[in-house]
């Protein structure tokens, strides 16, 4: 007998889950059945018709036989070497967060600490000038396949179609009709999913990928934690506008009076997403389901928690949850030990991502009521500790399961304009001239690497010609 793993949501989130599981589950024991929830959502928050796919998904794509060049070519997407933040700093300077590494340590001393020493000695240092991705982005140079960490901007509909194909090839199935209702027993176990054609599925495990509605998890595990006190944006509005000229290989995020606007460049068009407090657009709320896994239902994607798409955290967290689900794969419908372990890790990851976003607001220098409020709000404890220690000396306490690394935090705080009061004392042990030389050599190497890259528009034209 085979057990049915029912994935609710024939959307991007659902097909990613189906593809990941169908590859790993033995077919003689499990069927992976994807059921359409009858909506057009992507299961990840429905923010825009394009989605930023972080570098962390490269391995997952490769396992499915999808390389980055194919994904971009088949979907009409683009590449992003990082995110340019416009208008976030008090001094008006641009801030660039790249997906790759920034600088290199010297004698075990972190790059941003070396920069701190140089700054104290009167040399201005911009961290982004030492990040290959950032310099390439500013120069408008990049070639698909170049060994530089990058994200992808992929239109959701064709990206979903490619993953659907991969999931079906891996053995996932599509249910015969749309989801109508779930029968949930008194003990919380989902026993039957009825479909529009009168048939039913008896799930052994349900993966609720139906977005913020969480059509099943909202009944099996209703408690949710509201985070809008820290992340008050509650409306998103997306539009696609024609664009002239060569698309830049990065995301632009500009601060606004009531939030921010992201521009995701595609070939011949820009997708603009405005995320704001109030105003027009689709409502949403930053929140987390307290127990993503309860009984035989696991909430994934926006059904498990939702954060504004300032960074592509949704897909990173989805992939981590799926890896964790494989590690904790249950043996039956009641799996309290597995669920507790899963929920603990998932909470740590989501809170870590949340804190990374809150931090942008807490240190941004924008003028206006919203921004004044954001700077005044009291931060979650672990984030307050991070902020205080970085402000004191450029170091960061790190916690279990958080998705961003210490360097990501340091570069982000620095880019947003939070300058540590002191630098690592060990940077004083290295002669100043040696640090200057280290940075100069690195900068020269970065420039040489960028010179060797073609203009991005030219590389994209070549890519499309391959089709």
């Amino acid at each position, binding site marked *: 007998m085979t057990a049915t793993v029912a994935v609710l949501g024939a959307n991007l989130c659902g097909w990613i889950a189906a593809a990941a599981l169908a590859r*790993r*589950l*033995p077919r003689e*024991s499990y069927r992976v059945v994807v059921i359409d929830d009858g909506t057009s959502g992507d299961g990840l928050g429905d923010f825009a018709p394009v989605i930023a796919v972080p570098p962390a998904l490269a391995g997952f794509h490769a396992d499915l036989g999808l390389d980055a060049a194919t994904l971009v070519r088949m979907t009409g997407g683009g590449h992003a070497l990082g995110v340019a933040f416009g208008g976030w700093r008090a001094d008006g300077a641009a801030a660039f967060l790249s997906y790759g590494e920034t600088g290199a340590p010297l004698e075990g001393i972190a790059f941003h600490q070396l920069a701190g020493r140089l700054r104290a000695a009167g040399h201005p240092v911009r961290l982004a000038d030492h990040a290959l991705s950032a310099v390439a982005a500013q120069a408008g140079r990049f070639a698909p396949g170049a060994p530089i960490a990058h994200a992808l901007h992929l239109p959701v509909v064709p990206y979903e179609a490619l993953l659907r194909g991969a999931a079906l090839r891996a053995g996932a199935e599509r249910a015969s009709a749309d989801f109508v209702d779930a029968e949930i027993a008194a003990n919380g176990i989902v026993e039957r999913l009825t479909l529009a054609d009168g048939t039913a599925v008896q799930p052994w495990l349900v993966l609720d990928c139906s977005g913020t509605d969480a059509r099943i998890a909202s009944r099996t595990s209703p408690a949710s934690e509201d985070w809008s006190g820290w992340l008050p944006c509650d409306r998103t509005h997306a539009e696609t506008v024609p664009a002239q000229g060569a698309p830049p290989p990065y995301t632009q995020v500009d601060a606004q009076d009531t939030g921010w606007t992201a521009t995701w460049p595609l070939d011949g068009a820009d997708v603009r997403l405005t995320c704001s407090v109030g105003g027009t657009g689709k409502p949403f709320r930053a929140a987390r389901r307290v127990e993503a896994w309860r009984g035989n239902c696991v909430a994934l994607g926006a059904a498990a928690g939702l954060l504004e798409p300032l960074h592509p955290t949704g897909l990173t967290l989805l992939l981590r949850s799926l*890896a964790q689900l*494989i*590690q*904790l*794969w*249950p*043996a039956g419908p009641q799996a309290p*030990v*597995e669920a*507790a*372990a899963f929920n603990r890790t998932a909470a740590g990851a989501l809170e870590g991502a949340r804190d990374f976003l809150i931090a942008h607001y807490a240190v941004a220098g924008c003028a206006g009521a919203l921004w004044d409020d954001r700077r005044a709000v009291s931060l979650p404890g672990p984030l307050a*500790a991070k902020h*205080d*220690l970085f*402000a*004191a*000396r450029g*170091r960061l*306490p*790190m*916690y*279990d*399961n958080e998705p961003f690394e210490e360097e990501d935090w340091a570069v982000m705080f620095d880019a947003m304009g939070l300058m540590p*009061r*002191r*630098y*690592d*004392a*060990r940077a*004083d*042990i290295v*002669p100043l001239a040696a640090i200057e030389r280290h940075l100069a050599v690195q900068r020269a190497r970065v420039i040489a690497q960028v010179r060797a890259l073609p203009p991005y528009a030219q590389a994209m034209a070549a890519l499309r010609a391959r089709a």
Partner: protein
Amino acid sequence: MTAATLGLTTGTPSAARLADITLVESEEIGTVGVGEATVPHIRFFNQRLGIDEADFVRRTKATFKLGIEFCDWGRIGDSYIHPFGDFGHDIDGLPFHQHWLHATRGRPDETPALAACSLPIVAARAGRFTPPLDDPRSVGSTYSYAYQFDAGLYAAYLRDYAEARGVTRIEGRVEHVERGPSGIAALRLADGQRIEGDLFVDCSGFRALLIEGALKAGHQDWAHWLPCDAAWAVPTANTGPLVPYTRATARDAGWQWRIPLQHRTGNGLVFSTRFTDPERARAVLLDTLEGEVLAEPRMLRFRTGRRHRQWIDNCVAIGLSAGFLEPLESTSIHLIQLAIGKLIELFPNDAVLDPADAAEFNRAMALEYDRVRDFLVLHYCATERDDTPFWRHMRTMDLPPSLAVKIAAFRDRGIVEQYREGMFLPASWLAVYYGQRIMPERIHPLVAALPVADARARVAAVADACRRTAEGMPTHADYLARIGAAA
């Protein structure tokens, strides 16, 4: 050692160091120079100081260590080794031990023991040692190692090192601690000297002269979970070949260590005065020694727990002044070196104290002590022993909630929690769980779905590679001789 002060030269830190350092030490106060067993992190500490391994091994009479053998813990007669290394390797992203459990199904006698799938265990049992290889594809890279040495000689070695680099040592006994606006202003010594400083490091041991005596940090007592509070220590002459591991044998009301050094063996009995008396403990130790006794046994008293805060104002506690955990897993020196590393990372380079530095030091060190505590408690509670009041207490006591959750997840289906900070990795937890008879009730369902024959073949291949690789290693004594150390 009485107290060490770090006096910062504000403004012009010299190129070679972070600060001007003065060490205050009294010869009148003895140090405890027992054989000391360590964990692999000490190698990175020594490397950072630029210490040459062969020179260090010769001068501290050190031996190499691949793990700790635990005898009589789960049951009387049991023996297992907690190795510095992995058991096999993940297969399709799922842990090796799950595949091993699957392989044992129905035919446990025909499957190699999990211990046979760990190269450092196989090598330790065979009395062999060689440093690991760099090639990650080779089974020869799947382990690490530490040292066993004479703690008094290591202290002398480090004193030479420090004095050669400008640390000033002052002989004297602290008589009075002068408080200042931000912590401690100065130390007044018995001979009238007054030592000022910007930062004070309290290495005064259990007396915690500065952190507790002057600054009243407060102490969290863990005697409920770890009731041992005393130890007898005695050196003996070596007998038989030098083994590359430490031994910890459970006794009626505590446990006994055996640490082989080049020139002698360190022994000791850690016990609880709640469950036995010192005379009886002394007798148990002397009755079970293997070699000739080289000195009178000495008794030490201790108190298990940690300070609520280890860094207050301008005072940082390092070592026993910060907390104490019995040496069951050789963590004492590691906790000292970890604290030194943290202090350097958070070093106040302009003599301005920032509360964020102390907050981070206290968070990180408390987490480390708490996680080591849980790991130690596991050794005592994972037992079937009920032969003495001590073991009946240990077997049935309530556990720290953080540990109870971990054990429940393993017992249920072999889940091992992974954490970002904390010295014991999943392989260490596995060694103790299996070594002390906590068996998962179920195995991973995706592993269970695989053919048993495949699991058996993979386990056999790993065990075979471990056996062959260990056979190719020199004996521990030969390796020591090769680097010029007498063995």
